[in-house]
């Protein structure tokens, strides 16, 4: 008999660059209606790591305008600067250095170097160059990349602290288009693997976790849901459910039916 127990089902924390996290859902702060909605949705998601972007300050505008970092306090969340919008290694490195200055020396970054406006597909050549410079400069680099296992292996060998393959194009909501590649990356990696980009709904997030990913990073799926707070909750539950399903180990698939009720003792026997 399986023992019933009152203790919660144990899971190891998600460890990234020596820091432990209990939530495996990472969320972005873009595309929300306002900072109030951003703060509420992120609180509801249970996320501990929250991404943001670095942009030129709007000069000449109200200097007392609300600031993202008032809604998403660096005391409460691990803030993850993202180099989204950078199309060259040089710009990505500059952005990371600006972010480190913004956050008083915090050195964990999400590196993302894009190839073009139409696909926002990662430019892996520039990504590899930027990773090399950032790692040499003391950054802990979580890297957004294609779902190519060979590129993922190179990035891990260089010293990136998390590999983040896309599920599908950024903001597309097309889910995980190549689960087999994601699985290959999970199986070969010793650092955490997180699906980043493409998650559209809760089942996509659960699928990422069932594939054995260590976490999921998403933004638009919550921000552009009809009810962002409810979707934030759905994503939290989906990541937890997918993680438990992965740890539990799914039943084998069968070609034929297998009754759940015993055959013996039927009244028509």
């Amino acid at each position, binding site marked *: 008999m399986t023992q019933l127990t009152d203790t919660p089902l144990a899971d190891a924390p998600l460890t990234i660059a020596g820091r432990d996290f209990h939530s495996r859902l990472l969320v972005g702060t873009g595309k929300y209606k306002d900072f109030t909605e*951003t703060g509420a949705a992120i609180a509801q998601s249970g996320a501990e790591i929250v991404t943001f972007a670095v942009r030129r300050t709007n000069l000449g505008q109200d200097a007392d305008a609300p600031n993202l970092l008032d809604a998403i306090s660096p005391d409460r969340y691990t803030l993850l600067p993202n180099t989204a919008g950078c199309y060259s290694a040089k710009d990505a490195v500059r952005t990371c250095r600006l972010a480190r200055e913004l956050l008083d020396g915090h050195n964990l970054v999400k590196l993302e170097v894009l190839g073009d406006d139409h696909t926002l597909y990662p430019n892996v050549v520039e990504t590899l160059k930027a990773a090399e410079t950032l790692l040499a400069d003391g950054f802990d680099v979580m890297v957004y990349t294609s779902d190519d296992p060979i590129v993922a292996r190179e990035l891990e060998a260089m010293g990136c602290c998390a590999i983040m393959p896309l599920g599908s194009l950024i903001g597309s909501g097309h889910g995980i288009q190549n689960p087999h590649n994601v699985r290959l990356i999970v199986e070969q990696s010793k650092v955490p693997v997180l699906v980043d980009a493409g998650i559209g709904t809760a089942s996509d997030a659960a699928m990422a976790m069932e594939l054995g990913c260590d976490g999921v990073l998403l933004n638009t799926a919550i921000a552009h849901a009809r009810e962002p707070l409810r979707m934030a909750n759905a994503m939290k539950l989906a990541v937890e459910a997918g993680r438990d399903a992965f740890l539990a180990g799914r039943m084998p698939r069968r070609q034929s039916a297998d009754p759940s009720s015993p055959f013996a003792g039927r009244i028509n026997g």
Partner: protein
Amino acid sequence: MSIQIRLNGEPHTLSPGLTAADLVEQLGLSGRRIAVEINEEIVPRSQHADTRLVDGDHVEVVHAIGGG
């Protein structure tokens, strides 16, 4: 007498002899969570008061915004 810099990609005229800290104050951003880069090099907050701006400097002042 004045100097010309580029500030966040736009031409900007300043009195000579000002420091990065003076510029941040003129912009109403003192005490705000920003980062400053001059000619593609970070100027740490602790050095704003000691960093004099000169004609032709390219200055970037950035902050955190929502993003994925």
